[in-house]
């Protein structure tokens, strides 16, 4: 008993170190094989449709840095309509229910969450579908092998970045449906910086209506995604009103993104990773300058002077700090008035 306790403590300490060592060894050992390129692409093509068109229920965990969250999800695709219900399993209670284009979000009243911002808005997977394909230009895709996740057979795919401007990814897709059941974001060293994984999963078309009903008591906020279409479709270039980006890594294109009230933000995506650039007058914001990281997410804050005004440029994304810095420092303000007008 006594020794058990001691040895279990030792084990707890040793396991992460061991895991890292194993990962570090495993990554360079991967052999690139042309023969499986076709197979990889077939799997990647299935990824996007599978996200919407598979019906399943389960619990997944999401971890970045040492934040860990778990959520319960039910997802049903029936007659062309996606229904989804997510229930937070830790921290504050709350849930998100989606039926087609209607999203209802119920969260407890307290906390720092600005409720209106938690609701994902805009066309969900459409933007993703169109962007997925060129992924292999920026990442080299390989079949790693087979694995088992949450009781299901899965294929493991490595997407290694071809340059130092982005992180590498690992995707686990369930064998019969192509559903994403696990994913990693990894640094070039092989360290896992962000992970997502189902811990329990049942892929079934038999999910009753009541599993998509709201059960949490609290403030309820609903939003119709279709109503936002006008904004979502607006040219991202028009939204870069008054400033421009002097540099961005190849492959990152302005992404269709909702506006959350703030005028001067544009999101860029290469199909897998994304970063957002915020530009606003420094004004009353007294933010420290430099880089912060939470798992794979980098936040880079940069002060920019233009004319006699000072602006705060913030880059947030699942990209290496050096990339975020380069992007932030390349921002040029062309029209301070346009920024002043919309910035706050």
């Amino acid at each position, binding site marked *: 008993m006594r020794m058990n306790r001691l040895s279990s403590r030792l084990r707890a300490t040793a396991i992460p170190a061991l895991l890292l060592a194993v990962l570090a060894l495993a990554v360079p050992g991967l052999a690139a094989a042309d023969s499986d390129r076709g197979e990889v692409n077939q799997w990647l093509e299935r990824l996007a449709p599978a996200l919407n068109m598979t019906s399943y229920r389960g619990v997944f965990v999401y971890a970045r840095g040492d934040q860990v969250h778990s959520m319960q999800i039910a997802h049903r695709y029936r007659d062309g309509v996606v229904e989804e219900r997510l229930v937070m399993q830790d921290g504050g209670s709350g849930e998100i229910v989606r039926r087609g284009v209607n999203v209802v979000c119920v969260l407890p009243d307290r906390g720092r969450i600005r409720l209106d911002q*938690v609701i994902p808005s805009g066309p969900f997977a459409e933007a993703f579908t169109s962007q997925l394909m060129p992924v292999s230009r920026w990442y080299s895709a390989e079949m790693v092998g087979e694995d088992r996740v949450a009781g299901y057979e899965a294929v493991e795919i490595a997407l290694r970045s071809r340059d*130092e401007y982005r992180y590498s990814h690992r995707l686990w897709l369930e064998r019969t449906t192509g559903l994403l059941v696990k994913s990693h974001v990894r640094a070039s060293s092989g360290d896992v910086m962000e992970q997502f994984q189902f811990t329990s999963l049942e892929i079934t078309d038999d999910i009753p209506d009541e599993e998509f009903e709201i059960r949490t008591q609290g403030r309820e906020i609903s939003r119709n995604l279709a109503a936002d279409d006008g904004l979502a479709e607006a040219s991202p270039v028009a939204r870069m009103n008054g400033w421009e980006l002097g540099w961005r890594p190849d492959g990152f294109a302005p992404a269709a993104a909702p506006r*959350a009230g703030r005028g001067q933000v544009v999101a*860029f995506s290469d199909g897998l990773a994304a970063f957002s650039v915020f530009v606003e007058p420094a004004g009353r914001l007294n*933010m420290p300058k430099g*880089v912060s990281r*939470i798992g794979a997410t980098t936040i880079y804050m940069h002060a920019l002077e233009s004319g006699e005004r000072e602006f705060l440029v913030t880059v947030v994304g699942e990209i290496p700090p050096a990339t975020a810095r380069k992007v932030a420092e390349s921002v040029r303000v062309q029209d301070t008035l346009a920024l002043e007008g919309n910035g706050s």
Partner: protein
Amino acid sequence: MDDRLRETLSAMMDDEADELSVRRLLSHHDQARVRDQWQRWQQVRDLMHSGHTPAEGVDVSANVRAALDGRSGAAHHRVLARSASSSSRWRWPAVAMVAVALVVGFGAGAGWDSREGSATAGAPEIAAQAVPDSEVAAAQVREVTLQGLDEEQWEQMSQYLLEHAQHNSVGAGRGAVGYARVVSAGNGY
């Protein structure tokens, strides 16, 4: 230090120690070694979990003793009195945490709750630093520690994270991963 004492320490960390063992531990002749062991484990544990090591260089034994004896020092009078009156069967870690908090001056009183956000938010930073990262070193950029942010700055930072997560769920949306990022950004404290 013998194995039995070591086990008591270990059990204390897991919230499983009984009062008798704790008393035995506190009366051990070599308090410095007991303290060292406690701090080492605490550090390992903190690194693996929340990241903070308030136990460093702090001797909590006096406060624990006081708690065991039912006395209350001036500094932790209010808190201990409350925990003692609410239930006679107190739990060790609760007392220890309060004692540690008071000694370090970290989150005394109401601050324990309100600063919790920034405190745990800072944890990933520590975890990140433990992993050598050539990219950061090469970039030579200033690291902004999240726990150094004041309330307003943290608010602003989480808003950036949230908005980005929202773009992510749409732009590079991966279904559940996108949602998870949104929730993590909003809830991540």
